[in-house]
Structure formats: C-alpha cells, structure tokens
C-alpha cells in the first residue's frame, strides 16, 4: 500500500499472478474426514503481520512501505547550563528500555576517588568565633516548598549564622529569587544520606576558567549550643528541614579546607554567582552610573532573570558621617544584601539582609548609591 506523500520511491510490488484463484476456503465436505479439515485449516487466512512502530525497541523500525528504518540514536538531553557539562543529575527524564538483569553479587561500595568525593572527609567545623563548634547530624531534605514560598528554593530559606560569609549567602538568596532552578541543579541527593554538590570552581592551572567540581558531603553540620552554628536549616517538611543552604555552604567550606576559610576576609573566591553558573558575574560601583542608569540596569537584570547582590560600604570607605547615617537608616556596613525587587516608578528597591531580619524595603536608589559601593550581576 503506497504511503501518501512518501519521499522514497515506492518499491515495485510483484505483479499478481494472472487468473490466480482467490484465497477462499472450499466448502467443507464432512465425508472427507480429518485430513480434509486439516487442509481447510491450512487455507484459513493468516492473521496480519504486525509492523513494528519506529519506537519499538525490540527490533529495527520498519516503515509501512516495508523498508527497514535505521536504528534511531537516542537524543542526548540538551545541557542548558552555562559552561562545561555538569555531573549527571538525579532527575533525568531519559529512561532507557528495561533489560533483563542477570543475577549479581551484592555490590561492593566503590572507594571514593578523591577527598572531594569522600563524604567522610569534612571541613574543620570551627572558626575564630565558634571555636567549639562540633559536627552533629541533621536529617532533612534538599528543599521544601512552604507557605509563602514562590518555589521550594526560596530566598526566605537563607539565614546566615555565626560565620562572616554574608557575601556567600546573600548571593545564594539573590539566585534563589531569580533562578531557583539553577540552585536545584547544583545538588543531587545520593539517596544514602550524602549529597553531591557541583560548584563551578576556579581551575587551579587556569584560574580564569571555572570547572564543574562535584563535592560529596553528608548531612552533618557544625553545631554550637545545640543548634546549627552557621547557615540555618530552612523550612520544615514532613521528613525534616530543608538543607540546601547548609549543603552548599558545607561543600564550599570543604573545597576551601574549612569554614574559617570561607569567611569574607579569607575567601579566595567571592564570586558565588560564578560558582553556581560557571560564568563570572559582572561587578561595578553604583556610583559609577547615575541613579537613572542604575535603576534601568537593575530593572533589566531582574527582568532577564539575572541575580543581583550588593556590598555595603566598608568602614574604610565610609567616613564618620556616612557611618552614622547608615546606622540611622538601618544599613549594616561591611555587609552583603540580595536584590529582591525594583520599583522603577517609585525609584526604590527591596534589599534582603541574609540574616533573615532587618531587611531594607522601598529603599531609595539615591541611598543605594550613598551606602553601597559594589553591585554584582550574575550571568544570564
């Protein structure tokens, strides 16, 4: 049977035999017995041959015109993240066809290839201000969508603790606002109490490049006086609190050697946006552009889904007058904030303090220029 609009030329069908009798069973003659009945059965029309569809995996696909189709190659899932392809993710949608599995012996746990892959290797939990912090287990889940959350990964999940890594947690919160999926993709639950966090870290030989670096951590976190010492657990779920902030903080501390080493004054990599995307973020001073241009830049960034964070002035860059005014305005100097919202009409912004309290709402763009000396905009 010809296919309408087929591109291939139709194969020549064998010409029907002239005067071939129709395939029709002769009328049974009871007088002829079993051999006749068997003969009649042999003449019964056979059931039609099933032509496999192209999606069948048991054999080559076959077109309705009878020609076999070359075996389709599986489509590789497109990697939408910037930079090199990250480690395999948990929630892949490509499912191979089930194959019968031969019986196997109990699997032997593979020895981790490097310390970064070994969940038993933990960064030193102490820091100068929490010298007695010690590890304790916190059972939980990666993320929980609580009431009020736009997504399971939400800026409100971020609460800094007794570690001077405001630059780190503020950028996590800013990213959670504009692109929570990017954070979700960083963390894989290994299903055995460990998690693989893939951060794009500076290549030691070529520090201008970022390399996806899987870091395996468990769910033990530094505690002090019975509670998490550093980044806090987020929303509570049915199976425990959400841990994504603590997991990412721990992974970076592990890579850096200790929690002490990721304090703002000591970190060797302050571009957390770059760590999450693989692409360096853009930094500039708010004072380098006028209020109108700054407002336009911030509005555009948020509209493009680009996370933005701010660094408040340090004490060396703010004179006594500015320091006193900052105190009155509720601006914490030497501190980092996340951009949540821009109101271009009112010429104000909403800034989130990574403490989880003391945010700056409807903060004028003129004050932004006065009290902040850096803006970081994540790559798209």
């Amino acid at each position, binding site marked *: 049977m010809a296919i309408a609009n087929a591109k291939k030329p139709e194969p020549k069908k064998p010409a029907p035999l002239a005067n071939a009798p129709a395939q029709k069973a002769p009328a049974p003659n009871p007088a002829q017995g079993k051999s006749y009945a068997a003969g009649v059965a042999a003449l019964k029309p056979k059931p039609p041959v099933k032509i496999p569809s192209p999606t069948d995996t048991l054999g080559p696909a076959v077109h309705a015109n009878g020609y076999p189709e070359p075996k389709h190659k599986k489509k590789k899932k497109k990697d939408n993240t910037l930079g090199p392809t990250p480690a395999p993710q948990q929630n892949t949608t490509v499912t191979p066809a089930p194959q019968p599995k031969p019986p196997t012996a109990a699997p032997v746990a593979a020895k981790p290839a490097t310390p970064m892959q070994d969940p038993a290797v933990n960064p030193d939990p102490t820091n100068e201000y929490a010298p007695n912090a010690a590890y304790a287990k916190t059972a939980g889940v990666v993320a929980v969508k609580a009431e009020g959350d736009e997504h399971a990964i939400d800026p409100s999940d971020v609460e800094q603790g*007794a570690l001077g890594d405001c630059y780190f947690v503020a950028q996590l919160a800013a990213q959670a606002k504009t692109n929570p999926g990017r954070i979700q993709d960083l963390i894989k639950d290994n299903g055995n109490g460990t998690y693989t966090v893939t951060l794009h870290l500076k290549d030691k030989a070529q520090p201008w490049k970022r390399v996806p670096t899987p870091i395996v951590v468990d769910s033990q976190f530094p505690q002090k006086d019975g*509670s998490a010492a550093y980044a806090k657990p987020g929303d509570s779920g049915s199976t425990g609190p959400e841990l994504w902030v603590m997991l990412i903080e721990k992974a970076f501390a592990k890579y850096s050697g200790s929690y002490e080493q990721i304090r703002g*004054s000591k970190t060797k990599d302050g571009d957390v946006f770059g760590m999450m995307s693989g692409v360096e973020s853009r930094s500039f001073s708010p004072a380098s552009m006028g209020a109108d241009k700054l407002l336009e830049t911030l509005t555009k960034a948020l509209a493009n889904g680009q996370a933005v964070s701010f660094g408040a002035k340090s004490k060396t860059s703010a004179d006594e007058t500015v320091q006193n005014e900052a105190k009155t305005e509720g601006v914490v100097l*030497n501190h980092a904030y996340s951009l949540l919202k821009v109101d271009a009409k009112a010429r104000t912004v909403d800034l989130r303090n990574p403490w*989880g309290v003391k945010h700056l709402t409807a903060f004028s763009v003129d004050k932004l220029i006065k009290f902040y000396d850096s803006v970081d905009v994540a790559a798209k």
Partner: protein
Amino acid sequence: MTGRTVRIEETTVATLDGWKITVGNVMLATDPANPNRKRPTAVVGRYDAAKADQGERDVGVDDRLDIAGKQWRVVEVGLGDKSGNGFVELVETR
C-alpha cells in the same frame, strides 16, 4: 547558668537560648556619659525564637542586654582591623 561568654563577629548572627543576636555597625561613637570622649560601639539586634524584634541597642562596654530572660553584659567591643569586621563580646551575668 551564669558566666557563659560569647564573642559575635560584626555582620554575623549568634544564637543564644533560641534568640538571634545580630551585630553590626561597629564604630567609634560619642560616649553618652562623656560627650568629649568617643568609645567603640556596636548595634546589637535581638530577635526571639519567633523572630519577633525585641529591640536593637547601640551598646558599648558595660552596657547590659536582656536576652531570652537572662542578662548579659558587654565586656568588649572590638573595632577590628581596617578592612575586617569588629566584634562584641558578652558575658552572662544572671
């Protein structure tokens, strides 16, 4: 329990008996007891277990704070180095 000490770095958050204690804006400010003198001060925020604001205080050495029903005294306010953070050290008095 008395006698506990805690040192809190500027721009960070400590947890004391379930309360969040924040420290920011460590700087030299006029001593309210002596307008001719400056002393190191810090803005200390207190938030209870439900994150309700229990009042922010601008404190210097010997000032007292109520935290979760206990009293703490400021024993030191460190300005920190030029580029780094300062700190506040508290000791529990009762």
